[in-house]
């Protein structure tokens, strides 16, 4: 089931945007993880295998587990995806510091591939964001 809000629409573009970015896939070549990504309103179970999004379905899924979750408010994603984001809204960890996003669970895969996740979740910025 597809979500209709602009932030969810942007998230649903992630697999397509990632497939166009061979360098980012290459950087994630050793990454296999099941994570929960999205907004505080609507999030997705994202299965990453060898740096590619192998599966992505809206949460919740009955009894589906995840290793780590990164979720930000819809307003935070909208600001983050601006072509030139304002100060304090420009980085995943600036969002957590200001309380506009949460990072929880076992964050080791997130930290081992920190730049990968920063770049993955910034992909909608170059594709119109949540407009």
């Amino acid at each position, binding site marked *: 089931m597809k979500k209709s809000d602009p932030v969810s629409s942007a998230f649903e573009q992630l697999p397509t945007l990632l497939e166009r970015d061979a360098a980012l896939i290459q950087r994630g070549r050793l990454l296999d993880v099941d994570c929960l990504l999205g907004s505080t309103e609507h999030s997705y179970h994202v299965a990453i295998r060898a740096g590619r999004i192998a599966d992505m379905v809206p949460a919740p899924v009955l009894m589906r587990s995840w290793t780590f979750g990164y979720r930000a408010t819809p307003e935070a994603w909208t600001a983050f995806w601006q072509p030139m984001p304002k*100060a304090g809204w*420009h*980085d995943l*960890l*600036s969002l957590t510091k200001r309380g506009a996003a949460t990072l929880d669970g076992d964050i080791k895969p997130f*930290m*081992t591939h*920190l*730049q990968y996740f920063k770049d993955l979740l910034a992909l909608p910025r170059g594709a119109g964001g949540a407009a």
Partner: protein
Amino acid sequence: MTGYIEPMVGRYVHVDIDGTMHRIYFEEAGQGIPLVCLHTAGSDNRQWRYLLADEEFTKHYRIIAFDLPWHGKSNPPANWDGSEYQLTTQRYTQTIRAFCKALDLNKPVVMGCSIGGRIVLNLAIDHAREFRALIGLEAADFQAPWYDTAWLNRPDIHGGEVCAALVSGLVAPQSPAEARMETLWAYKQGGPGVFKGDLYFYRVDGDLRGRTTAIDTKACPLYLLTGEYDFSCSPEDTVRTASGITGAEVTVMEQLGHFPMSENPAQFRRYIAPVLATIQQKHSS
């Protein structure tokens, strides 16, 4: 020779720091007022290469940028046994003063960024009369932590990758891609545990809250400049710090982050040029 050779020259000076001899690498260019530049935690003096190559600044300043021990081309001391590296307020202060003494610098200006900005505040508190002026970039008496430094040095995570990825968000999005890459490259090259060890000073040992009110800017002028995109040492942190220091001059730099001198040298120049001109005018009058 037909190749373009940049103006800075690199040398080593042997410096006694608290009874241990260190071989300190530094680069310098220009002549005039000594201007000692301090790099950020986990990086090295390459951050200052644009300032060192500035034809105008080097007409009036002898710009000197050194690598802290364990950083860049300043190796750990010969007697290091591999124990955990930790920078302290006392150690950092000793290092700067010993370096200036070894080069016989007469009342230098010291400009530091991040941990370098924090230690500049400590120099202003305890040793103001030794310096002509002090410049703190991305400086505050304290700032709230935004990550656990334990992630920076563990055998199952690539230290260079995680250090660079963490600080990548501190570079302003307007910064040129090549300068951003170069700024992060230094973080990818740091020795294991060195960035974390520097942050011991920043996070644990160097809390200057309550002490900065003792700064006498009549004894030594203090300039604080912070980039608007720095969410580690935010403009609010710097303004709060300056509000308790009579005479401190504060500038919030637009379109800059935590590494102004290396992430966007042209934009940084717009802000640092008036400061250097003011110090030079006071020196001449």
